[in-house]
């Protein structure tokens, strides 16, 4: 009789032990070498190609500086979960904290606790409006409203009047700002902009949403995607409708697919915020801060964008995307 019980308990223990040995393997203890211990917490979802380039920057810098970096991100765009990941990072008392702040209200208490604990902070990617308030050394990223306005202006210059803005990460205030910035320039020129929400984990669903929106209103003459996960289904939707090239298409952020589309002439431009730098630089800055008390930025953000990739420079950038750093 009790053999059954023992089997159950053993099976449970074996499962737990199996997952432990598989995962715990290589990770060193926090105070292994002399390198700085830096915790990176972002809102980047693992399935988004944008963040793999960011992570590549973090890893390259960690290797170059000999630092000990832990990287964590919530499994979905969940700010309550992200706040608790910051709490966990603060509890390990690292030499520095790199954090993206897509929703300041939600993350503010956790960031304040990090600041109180005396941990040097650098905000990256999103958070340009709030980094000073939480006592961060600097912010590394682009100003989303400015970038949005620049993208909107490009579309206006190309002749767009009725634009849809594809938001693939509902709830991300940075993406809201991009659409709002673009709307400013487009409305200033007498055009209109409408926001369309899609799910970044459902490419097929996003494509059909975009294509039916375009079919429902044939005066729409331009599509602005807020990232490669929105740009790819937008490209597919234009292809499906046979309006590739007629309907203007611009996006934020790069992927090999986006750059190829620019080379092919099916996409007008991509706003590049060079997220490799957003991963690489804070590791360097925080290590210098620990070893040499350096602070970079002079109280101002360090801007990594907006830069534009268009037909004039797409070929060179494409070569670099192959190595995962653009």
């Amino acid at each position: 009789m009790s053999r059954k019980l023992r089997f159950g308990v053993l099976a449970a223990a074996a499962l737990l032990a199996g997952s432990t040995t598989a995962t715990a393997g290589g990770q060193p203890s926090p105070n292994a070498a002399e390198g700085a211990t830096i915790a990176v917490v972002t809102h980047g979802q693992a399935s988004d190609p944008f963040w793999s380039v960011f992570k590549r920057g973090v890893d390259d810098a960690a290797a170059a500086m000999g630092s000990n970096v832990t990287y964590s991100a919530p499994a979905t765009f969940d700010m309550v979960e992200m706040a608790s990941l910051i709490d966990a990072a603060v509890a390990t008392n690292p030499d520095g904290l790199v954090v993206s702040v897509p929703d300041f209200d939600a993350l503010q208490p956790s960031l304040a606790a990090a600041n109180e604990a005396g941990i040097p902070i650098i905000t990256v990617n999103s958070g340009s409006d709030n980094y000073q308030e939480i006592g961060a050394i600097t912010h590394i990223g682009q100003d989303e409203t400015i970038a949005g306005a620049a993208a909107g202006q490009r579309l206006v210059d190309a002749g767009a009047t009725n634009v849809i803005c594809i938001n693939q990460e509902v709830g991300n205030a940075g993406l809201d700002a991009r659409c709002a910035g673009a709307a400013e320039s487009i409305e200033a020129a007498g055009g209109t902009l409408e926001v369309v929400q899609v799910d970044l984990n459902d490419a097929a669903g996003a494509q059909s949403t975009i294509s039916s929106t375009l079919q429902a209103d044939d005066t729409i003459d331009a599509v602005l995607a807020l990232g490669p996960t929105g740009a790819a289904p937008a490209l597919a939707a234009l292809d499906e409708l046979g309006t590739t090239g007629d309907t203007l298409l611009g996006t934020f952020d790069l992927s090999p697919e986006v750059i190829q589309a620019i080379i092919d002439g099916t996409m007008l431009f991509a706003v590049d915020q060079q997220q490799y730098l957003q991963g690489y630089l804070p590791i360097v800055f925080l290590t210098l801060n620990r070893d040499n008390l350096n602070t970079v930025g002079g109280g101002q953000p360090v801007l990594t964008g907006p830069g534009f990739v268009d037909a004039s420079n797409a070929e060179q950038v494409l070569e670099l995307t192959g190595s995962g750093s653009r």
Partner: protein
Amino acid sequence: MTTTVVPAIPKAPTDERVARSSPLMRLLIRPEFGALAGAVVVWLLFAWQAGGVWLSWQGTATYVDVSAKYGLTALAIALLMIGGEFDLSSGVMTGTTGMFAGLFAVNSGMHVVLALVLSLVLAVAIGVINGVMVVKSRLPSFIVTLGTFFALQGFNLWLTQRVTGLTNVTGIDAASGYELGRRLFASTMFHIGRAEFSISLLWFVAMAVLGSWVLMRTKVGNWIFAVGGNRDAARMVGVPASATKVGLFVAVAVCGWVHGMVVLFETSRSNVIEGVGQEFYFIIAAVLGGCLLTGGFGSVVGAAFGCLILGMTRQGIPLAGWDPNLNFLFLGAILLAAAFANEAIRRWASTAGRPSQRKIEEAAHDAAVEQDVIAATGDGGGDE
């Protein structure tokens, strides 16, 4: 095992239903035992992997806080599952109630207390709608609440965008009465060194005590077990089955409202997708806590331990420095391990000290024959 005294009535056939079982067995058969054991195992695992941080008050505070927040809704889900139903709209309720309270307080300019009361009324209404639809239609609650889940998610997005133009409702921290709401739902209960324990822990413990008392010590608790076991049989012996089920859906909605308010006042804003996807965590917590998907069995205290397992897992992985992508893999493994262990313990405990396998098979055979007879004579159900 000297305590086990079997009354030795010579040769008389003993009735296994009144046989005494040992205290150890009574402990093992309890639904919360598996969750307690699991929580200890997971705690030890991360104590070993994460070391000092895990044992520190600050490390403890991070996982206790996360666990408590899961528990705000998960404990009610445990009651609902014992009552034989399911609520997939429980996650989105966090965002829905937060959005309503936020819009009332910020965009309609109401006092926070009024916004709280109104959003609670709406939460109760959603609970009643869920419950009545399930009870009246007799459709699986999985389908009905899947519908409300999607409907609410879309409604939140539509209304928030329409009113604010963004995907967030911000500015509640400037509304009148904000401080009161913050004190109720999002203040720090106590400090230990730099570690902060938030008031959601108090809500969590209070709900666990209340839920457990209702389930184990009141008539309503008996009703919940009864409707989860067999609704029609329960109704025949005089249990108000429909009212009990609707009440459970309302309880889930009210607890979802508390969860929504905690998130709203902690973050000072309401996000349209808040809580979406968390319904699965609530169900995992209830299952880890010994609740059966078929209803009629389970425990609120067990679900509380289930929440602790979830919280420890989520915070333990970054604290131990594991690759965060392993989070779901690990959760899935724990869920399976717990489900298998629970099942093995239950099967062992329910047969140990009972009549021989042959007798059980005979009984099963009799039951099967009876089943065949029912099937042969035509429809078995179809009342109302």
